[in-house]
């Protein structure tokens, strides 16, 4: 089987153009859907005004500055209702803070997210430890409303704030030998009570990875905020990945390390249960999972009277944009 891996050191002008074209098209769609009402809001609008029920949080100065020039609703999915902030911020999987859905919201406040720095290394010209504000200094903040599909068969729709991972990759200047990117979550046992459990099955720190072309894809986002504010700790503050066509566990939280590597990294869930979790973890209703049927999903919030079950879409509905990345692969084998 032939897998084409583009040389990553190249500047990839083509990707930039695609992105711009893609975004402008989406912006029009979004504007149409929302009848221009929200799109016309002044950029300075506060988080609480943008989305109902959002609790405000103190934000560092660099974030507030960037927010003023943010491009709101740069990507908006057609006909999707945004999940309420309360649900998106209180129903989380972040096992560093405990195994239950409510644990992260209860216990993640102990994580110290400021100051934050990220160690960039591996096959790059510009390795080193970067402060978070340095990492996004040249990028304009964008709001992207993405569907989030968890491997546990539930889904949400979340307005993220961030910048394309491709921006950071260009900044780091990887060598052509870098074929994959490996991400690592902070591991601070004194701040993360879930990591202190004697019966935990996860080998910390949490590790995820992407192939270089996936990482360069314009949809791949590094998020620093959501719902018009900074990320709540339980949602992966202060820096997380968002890859909307993959199961949620690929979107690694609270990133402290980004390495450009030659070999496919060994990721956390894949190493724990390779028959259940693949490296690619693309949302695919046809590839079954031994725990959950992936054919359908529960769109949250649900209630006792409506289960809100809906069919899961291939690549979580982003097939048009990303299917090309996998055209030469057998998705039932490379799941």
């Amino acid at each position, binding site marked *: 089987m032939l897998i084409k891996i583009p040389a990553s050191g190249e500047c990839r002008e083509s990707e930039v153009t695609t992105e711009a074209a893609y975004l402008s098209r989406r912006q029009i769609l979004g504007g149409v859907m929302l009848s221009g009402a929200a799109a016309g809001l002044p950029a300075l609008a506060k988080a609480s005004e943008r989305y109902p029920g959002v609790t405000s949080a103190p934000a560092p100065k660099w974030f507030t500055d960037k927010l003023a020039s943010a491009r709101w609703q740069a990507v908006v999915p057609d006909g999707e209702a945004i999940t309420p902030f309360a649900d998106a911020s*209180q129903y989380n999987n972040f096992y560093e803070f405990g*195994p239950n859905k409510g644990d992260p919201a209860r216990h993640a406040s102990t994580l110290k997210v400021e100051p934050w720095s990220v160690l960039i290394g591996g096959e790059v010209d510009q390795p080193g430890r970067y402060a978070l504000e340095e990492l996004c200094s040249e990028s304009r903040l964008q709001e992207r409303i993405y569907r989030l599909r968890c491997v546990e068969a539930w889904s949400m729709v979340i307005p993220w704030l961030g910048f394309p991972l491709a921006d950071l990759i260009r900044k780091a200047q990887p060598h052509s030998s870098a074929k994959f990117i490996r991400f690592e979550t902070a591991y601070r046992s004194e701040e993360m009570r879930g990591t202190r459990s004697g*019966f935990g099955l996860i080998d910390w720190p949490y590790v995820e990875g992407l192939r270089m072309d996936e990482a360069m894809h314009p949809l791949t986002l590094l998020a620093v905020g959501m719902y018009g504010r900074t990320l709540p700790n339980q949602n992966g503050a202060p820096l997380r990945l968002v890859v909307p066509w993959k199961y949620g566990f690929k979107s690694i939280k609270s990133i402290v390390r980004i390495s450009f590597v030659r070999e496919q990294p060994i990721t956390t869930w894949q190493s724990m249960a390779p028959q259940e979790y693949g490296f690619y973890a693309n949302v695919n209703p046809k590839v079954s999972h*031994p725990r959950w049927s992936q054919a359908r999903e*529960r769109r949250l*919030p649900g209630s*006792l009277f409506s*289960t809100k079950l809906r069919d899961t879409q291939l690549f979580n509905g982003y097939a048009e944009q990303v299917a090309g990345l996998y055209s030469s692969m057998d998705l039932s084998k490379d799941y």
Partner: protein
Amino acid sequence: MRYPVWRPAVFACAASLPLYWLYLGWQFALGPDPGKVLVDNLGEGALVLLLLTLSMTPMQRLTGWGGWLAVRRQLGLWCFTYALLHLSGYLYFLLGGEFSRLGEELRERPYVLVGGLGFVGLTVLAMTSSRWSMRRLGKRWKKVHRLVYLIVILALLHMLWVVRADAARWFLYAGIAMALFFLRVPAVTKTLASVRSRKGRGE
């Protein structure tokens, strides 16, 4: 009726818990995925009730109080009820009532099959729990009801398969089950009885 307060109290406790969960779900207090929470709570509740049922005989041996045995059948039937509600919740909330998908679920997800087998076992025990069945089955009744030990193992396996990241709860239940099995080893049972009789004589 013997134990006129104790038995209705156990009944009220066991009955009120699922009603309370349902009420919380009604009030949107179970979070954005209330169906899943109900299914999980009912499943875990059924396992706890199964272990409680099995602990009544050792409790009676240890304390000599007959009240434990007076609620044993009731607790077993509650375990069956919780398991039935757990199964119904799974079919309604997680499968969306699409019974056509049940075949695939049983084939591809072994924990569903194991849970299903456990439920079949519980159904057999619940159906043969009446006095009439006990008389009818005679000596065989005890043999049939030894099935409960297999059901405990199936239930624990069913839960272990669902555990994703932290097995603390599972180890707790498995540990209790092991202890309850251990207390049924004849030599241990004898020692337990002698402990009580010594206590009874005030030594």
